[in-house]
């Protein structure tokens, strides 16, 4: 399931659940491509929560999380960042990072 959130909504997320947070920009071709990749992954793993956040409109959060560019994917488990992928990636790399959260 893919949900777009803001930095305010980020604070209300269930911290204990494993999740993927993706920072994207509307002006970024690789981010647009990644949205299709994440859609495919969401079809394969409909229960796994994927949150997308606009890099340009949520600057406080991206600075707090140390996100320097877009697209950037952060993989969380029990409130802690376990891994991150920077740049456009293909499905196997992302699925592998998700599986590592289990």
């Amino acid at each position, binding site marked *: 399931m893919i949900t777009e959130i803001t930095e305010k909504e980020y604070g209300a997320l269930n911290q204990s659940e494993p999740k993927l947070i993706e920072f994207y920009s509307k*002006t970024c071709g690789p981010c*647009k491509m990644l949205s299709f990749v994440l859609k495919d992954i969401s079809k394969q793993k409909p229960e796994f929560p994927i949150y997308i956040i606009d890099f340009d409109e949520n600057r406080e959060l991206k600075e707090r999380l140390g996100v320097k560019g877009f697209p950037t994917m952060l993989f969380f488990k029990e409130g802690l960042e376990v891994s991150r992928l920077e740049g456009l990636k293909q*499905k196997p790399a992302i699925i592998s990072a998700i599986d590592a959260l289990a």
Partner: protein
Amino acid sequence: MSNTIRYISQDHLITRQNRAEQEFLAAFAAEKPTLAAPKVVVNPYLINPLCALVMFTTPDAVAPTLTVHGKRYERENITHTFKPATEHVLPVLGLYEDFANQVTVSLPDGSSTTLTIVTGKLPEDVCRCLNVQASLDYLGDNIMFLSPAGKNLPVAYDYKGDIRWMLTENTMFDIKRMKNGNIVTGSSRFCHMPYNCTGLVEINLLGKIYKEYRMPGNYHHDHFEMEDGNLLALTQDFSRDTVEDMCVLLDRNTGYILKTWDYRRVLPMSVGGSGSQDAHDWFHNNAVWYDKRTHSLTFSGRHQDAVINLDYETGDLKWIIGDPEGWPQEMVDKYFFKPVGDLTRFDWQYEQHACVVCPDGDVMCFDNGQYRAKVKEKYIENRNNFSRGVRYRINTDKMEIEQVWQYGKERGQEFFSPYICNVEYYGEGHYMIHSGGIGREGGYAAKALGPFLDAQSPNVELRSITVEEKDGVVLYQLETEGNFYRAEKLPLYHDGDNLVLGDGQLIGSLEVTEEFDTVPETEEVFALPPSFHNLLIEEDEDRFVFHGRFEKGTLAMLCLEKEGESHNYFLNTSATWHLAMCSGAFLEKDERDIKIHISKLGLHGVFKIKLIVNDRKFQTGVSICCP
């Protein structure tokens, strides 16, 4: 404006040269010209306008002598005697441009013919000599070859600064003469930004390609001929997130990779970074040298300010020359050297190029010196900086290092090159120092690298200065327009075969270009993409290159389709800033212009090329044929 797509299908240069050679040899066989009226072909291999072939037959096997007359004096003549034969196909090298060159062929019996070979003007943008201090006594038969660092072309200048050799193909990186007399340099065929080409080409000075050694990870920066003729070449694995961190050994006959050295195995990637380092290009390997004495490999890594040495057999790290600040203490203790001797003269090298191991084990390099510090707070501005050639004496038992020679510090910013360049060791006290990446803005060393400067601006100067020093005395200095990657001093003719007839070969292998496994949902339209995209598709025998213009942030994908099969390649339309640009040959003026190389390896059949732009999939009307 109607929507159009440009499509060019051209045989590989080797195929075109093979065809040209077959044609002039067939004409030679049919005409059977004699010495009195020999057959002359100017630029026989299509890419060197300053050369020719003179062909004739003699009843008996004789050894002809060919003389290219100097423009001014007899002393300037270039003369070479060829092996005895009855059918003579003689390379004429070193013609002057835009000139009625006098060329004499003489036989041992005293007979001779003098020909006039007229050459045309060279391309307007060829880089000219601005200043040369040289003598025939010093240079002898040698001329100075400069390999390009941008869209300029490889050229060679004589003692007067006249261009006597050039290629109209933008071959890349170093020009090195092999033991058989041939030249090996980078191919001009684009593969990956910023400057990765398909591989190496082995050519003669007529420009004939004997072999192109294709490499799946492409070629960049440097190569080295081993004693058995095999070639060390710098490369990478594009399936990883990092680049310029591998070396391979190529079989000279087949082009196959025989051995690989991976620096990620022995170096941490996140320490010791130079001012230009990023996570992707963490090492930036720009030189390789094999030292038989220690059976080891020495590599220069610009983005760690480090010259490293690996055991040839095991690939294990043996030592590192560089400023140890910022490296883990256990590595400093094990691999780094402690400076000794006159420390008031000692400087570490920073962002260096072109490491050389001297016969006695000393290590030389071109110390570009960019940033000249390991931490941001201490970085030195280019206008306050210097570049130099340097020679270090290392003691690997005591792990001590002494600076025993340098040239260039005293010249300050005027000789400063933040990128490229090389040094050569000719003998004790006799060196070349090539500062080929000088960029000035408003008279000061520019902040940006040469390829990023506007060379058309009256405020900007791109320069290349090549110096040779013997026993502390400068005996040669060449200053040219433009930036040049490296300099190599060579004679035009050598004692081996200056021309071997027969077909050139395309060997080794390109990569299977990585596909993208997700395809965006789009609407297929039966129209060409808008003309704004300025599409060009260049098809070659073993790959094609797609060029297009896209606004930043466009979703773009190239699709190859035939019935029941498709292959999809993501096009990155983000503006990319390169921290290193050792050759700007492939750089586009407009950052919206992108290009992608797609190897035909792994593709079979005829594919229609389609283009996804945001939510629509367009036709191109172009089909690609893959064997």
